[in-house]
C-alpha cells in the first residue's frame, strides 16, 4: 500500500505522487488529508485503487480509464467528468455536474448530488443514494442513472437515449422525458448493479424514464415543442 500525505502539497504535487507510485508498480494507494483540493486523481489510466481519506474538490477522477477511486468525504463539481471506465465511489455528497459526459464506468454518490448529474452522458452508470438536483441527465445520450432518493426539476431534460431509474419523488420531468414501464430485465439489472454497492433493489419501487423521442428529428409542424426545448 502506497501512502501519500497531502499536507503541504499542491494538487499537481499530489497527482505526481500518485503517478509516481503507479509507475513503481503500486496498485493500492491511500491519499491522506486531501483537503478538498481540485483535480485530484485525474487521468489515471490503469486499474489502480486510490482511496481519498477525506473530501475532494472539483473534477476528482476526471478522464479516468480504469481506476477504482474511493472518496471518504464529499466531492465538488464535475466528479469523474469524462471518465472512460473504472469506478468512483463518494461516501457523502457531490456538487454540480457529477459524472458529466462519462463514456463508461460507474459513479456512485451515497449522499445527494446537486444540479446536472450525468449531463451529456455517453455511457456508463451513475448511482445516487440520496437526492438529485435540477436537470439530472440533461441531454444524456447513453447509459443509466439510478436515483434512490428524490429528483429536482427538469429530470432527464432533452435526453436522447439511455434511461433513468428513480425510487423517490420526481418534482418535474424535463422536456421529452417520459415514464416507461419497468421490464423483468430492468429489475434484474437494478438488483445486479446496486448489490455490489450495498443497495438492495427490492427495497425500492423504481420508476423508469426514457426519451419520448419527439426531439429526435426536427419537424417544423411541431415547432412549439422545439421552442420550449431550446
Amino acid at each position: 500500500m502506497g501512502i501519500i500525505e497531502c499536507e503541504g502539497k499542491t494538487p499537481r504535487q499530489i497527482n505526481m505522487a500518485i503517478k509516481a507510485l503507479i509507475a513503481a508498480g503500486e496498485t493500492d494507494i491511500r491519499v491522506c488529508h486531501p483537503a478538498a483540493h481540485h483535480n485530484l486523481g485525474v487521468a489515471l489510466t490503469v486499474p489502480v485503487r486510490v482511496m481519498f481519506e477525506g473530501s475532494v474538490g472539483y473534477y476528482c477522477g476526471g478522464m479516468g480509464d480504469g481506476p477504482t477511486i474511493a472518496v471518504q468525504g464529499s466531492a465538488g463539481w464535475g466528479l469523474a467528468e469524462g471518465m472512460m471506465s473504472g469506478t468512483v465511489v463518494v461516501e457523502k455528497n457531490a456538487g454540480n455536474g457529477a459524472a458529466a459526459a462519462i463514456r463508461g464506468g460507474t459513479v456512485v454518490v451515497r449522499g445527494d448530488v446537486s444540479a446536472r448529474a450525468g449531463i451529456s452522458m455517453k455511457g456508463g452508470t451513475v448511482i445516487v443514494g440520496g437526492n438529485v438536483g435540477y436537470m439530472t441527465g440533461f441531454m444524456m445520450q447513453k447509459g443509466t442513472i439510478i436515483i434512490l432518493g428524490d429528483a429536482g426539476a427538469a429530470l432527464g431534460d432533452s435526453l436522447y437515449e439511455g434511461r433513468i431509474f428513480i425510487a423517490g419523488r420526481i418534482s418535474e420531468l424535463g422536456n421529452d422525458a417520459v415514464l416507461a414501464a419497468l421490464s423483468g430485465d430492468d429489475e434484474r439489472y437494478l438488483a445486479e448493479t446496486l448489490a455490489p454497492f450495498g443497495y438492495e433493489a427490492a427495497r425500492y419501487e423504481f420508476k423508469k424514464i426514457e426519451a419520448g423521442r419527439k426531439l429526435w428529428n426536427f419537424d417544423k409542424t411541431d415547432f412549439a415543442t422545439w421552442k420550449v426545448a431550446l
Partner: protein
Amino acid sequence: MCGIMGYIGKTERQEAALGATMLRMLTALGRRGPDSAGVALYAHRADGAYHIRVKPGESADIDARMAEILRRVRTAARLCAHAHADEYLRLTLDSVSDPQALQESIESVHPDIEVISFGRALDLVKQVGSPENLEQRFGISRASGTHAIAHTRLSTESRIDLSHSQPFWAHGTLDVASAHNGHITNYHKLRRQYEQRGVRFYTENDSEIIGIYLCEAMQAGATFAEALQNSVQFFDGSFSYLAATASELGFAKDPFGFKPLIVAESDDYIAIATEEVALRAACGADVETWEPPAGTVRTWNVYQERDKHVPSPVLEAREAVAP
C-alpha cells in the same frame, strides 16, 4: 469566478474568532479572486454608535476636502471619533437624525467621494489586493462579531478599484450588504429602470444592483427572506449571492445552479462559501458540507440562531478593525 463566503457564529467562542475565521475563508478562496478582497463584519455594539467609512478619493487638496466632510458631519450628527488612513476616512457618530441625508451631504462635497459603509452593526472594509493585504492593512483577524460576509473578486465586466470591490454596502440603507459570484444579465435593463426613478449607481459592477433591489423590496414591506426569494426570479443570469443585515444573513442561488455555493451547518456555526476549501478553513477538516439545489434561498436570524445555542447576553464587540 469570484469567491463569496458567509459565517454566523452561534457561540461566544465563534463570535470572538469571527475576524480570524473570515480571514481563513478569504485566504482559501484568494485564488478565485486575486483582484480585490473585502469583508462586511457585523457586531452587536451596545453603544449604539454609527460607523461610517468614506472614500474621500484622490485630490491635491485632500486636507481641505476632509475638513469640508468633517464640517458637514458635525452640523448633522454628533461626531465622536474620526481617523484617516490610506483610502478611508473612518467616522464614529454618537447620533445622527437622518443617516441618508448625511450620506448625501458627504458625497456632495465632490463626485469622487463615496460612502463605502454606514451602519450601527456593520463595518465593511475592502481593497484592491489579496486577503493577505486586507489583513495587513486592516487587521481583520482581530475582529469579533456575530456574522459576516466576504468576497474575493476576479473582475470580468468592470474596472478594478475600491468602489468596484465587494462586498457592497447597499447605499442609503444602514447595515445592508451583499456579495455576489456570477453575472446578472438583465443588469442594464434593470439599471435603466432604477435610474429613471432616481436611484444613484456608484459603479459599473452588475453586482451592485443586488443591494439596491433588496433594500427597495424591504422598504416596500417585504421581509429579508421574501426579498431574497423574489430576487431569484427578478434577476436573470448566473448568481450565487450572500446578503446580510444587522440581524440576518442569507443566500440565493439562481434557478439553473450556474454558480456553486456550499453550506455547512452545526450547533456552533453556519458557514457558506463558494468552495469547500473555505468551509474547511473555517470549520476544520471534519466539516459536513452540502450544495443546496438550484434556486435555493435560505436566510437565518443571527440572534435566533444564537439563542438556540446559548441563552447568554450578547457579546460586546471588541474594537477590532483598524481605521
